[in-house]
């Protein structure tokens, strides 16, 4: 599984706008580059990112080959209630990596 760095506050006040920052290790191979033998290196990118807050979708992104390796995605959401924030990255092979973080809302 790829390395992931996720930064979000562990605690927040109800109604507070919180910033969530995510970073995942991935080559984001464009599919346009040639390898040492002259053959095209097959495309291998993360194509979808999804964030759910207690099961409800709060942020989604579609990624394309122009995005650099190790994509960094930062976004904001409103802290509504305590619970789980789940992040999932899906690549070209339809493999999904999911990470879950807890948040306490007071």
């Amino acid at each position, binding site marked *: 599984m790829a*390395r992931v*760095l*996720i*930064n979000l506050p562990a605690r927040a006040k109800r109604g507070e706008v919180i910033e969530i*920052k995510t*970073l995942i*290790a991935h080559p*984001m191979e464009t599919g346009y580059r040639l390898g040492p033998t002259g053959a095209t290196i097959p495309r291998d990118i993360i194509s979808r990112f999804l964030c759910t807050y207690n099961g409800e979708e709060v942020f989604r992104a579609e990624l394309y080959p122009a995005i*650099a*390796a*190790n994509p*960094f995605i*930062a976004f904001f959401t409103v802290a509504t209630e305590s619970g789980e924030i789940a992040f999932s990255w899906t690549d070209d092979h339809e493999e999904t990596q999911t990470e879950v973080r807890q948040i306490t809302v007071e």
Partner: protein
Amino acid sequence: MKALLFAVIAATAAAAAAAEFAPGDRRSGYDFAGPESRAMQDDDTANPGMLGVLEGETLWATKAGAADRSCADCHGDARTSMKGVAARYPAFEPALARPLDLEGRINRCRTEHQRAAPFAGESEDLLALTAFVAYQSRGLPIAVAGDGELRPFFDLGSELFHRRQGQLNLSCSQCHDDNWGRRLAGAMIPQGHPTGYPVYRLEWQSLGSLQRRLRNCMIGVRAEPYDYGAPEAVALELYLMARARGMPLETPAVRP
């Protein structure tokens, strides 16, 4: 006669001083980077070099080789045992009678103590473990002096730094001593202090070693680049680290 001798000594001293920056005049590559790159380096959750550090932390605790030992089995907690180590490399290895850089030391530990195959030069694993070890010295001043047994290698590094080479017939010094702060095409010329290696270079989209950076410059002046771990490359690395003595390590730095 006495006056003449004094004049010679003064001239020699001036020549030696001209090659070095006054401590207050030295600038890390960080100071030449744009605000976005700096912000990326300063925030550990946005710094992609930290992915390598995390990977290195895992490797540190992974058993390897015929000895079935991990780095941690001998060295314990890296946060204490590796603190300040990267700031002292390249260091002299008496068994080989030559200096080793941090990558070379890690690979020697692998072959000698873990009895495992060395990591390939510039491989992801080697960079990750090097970044993890160097990260333990972040903020500490570079402590390479280049004296004593290292002196001949320091002198070789210095000579290589000032030697014109390649089809463009340029020395390192002509850009990084004489023209730093100016632009080479679109790029700012830094002073060439290796303060943050292995660095995450946005152009590479990955971590890379100082030697990879040196090879880049050499290809730029159309010279034959040194192989990874070549004695010349380590000597140049030694000279550059001694030249940056006292500057804080930033590993993993982010550079454009």
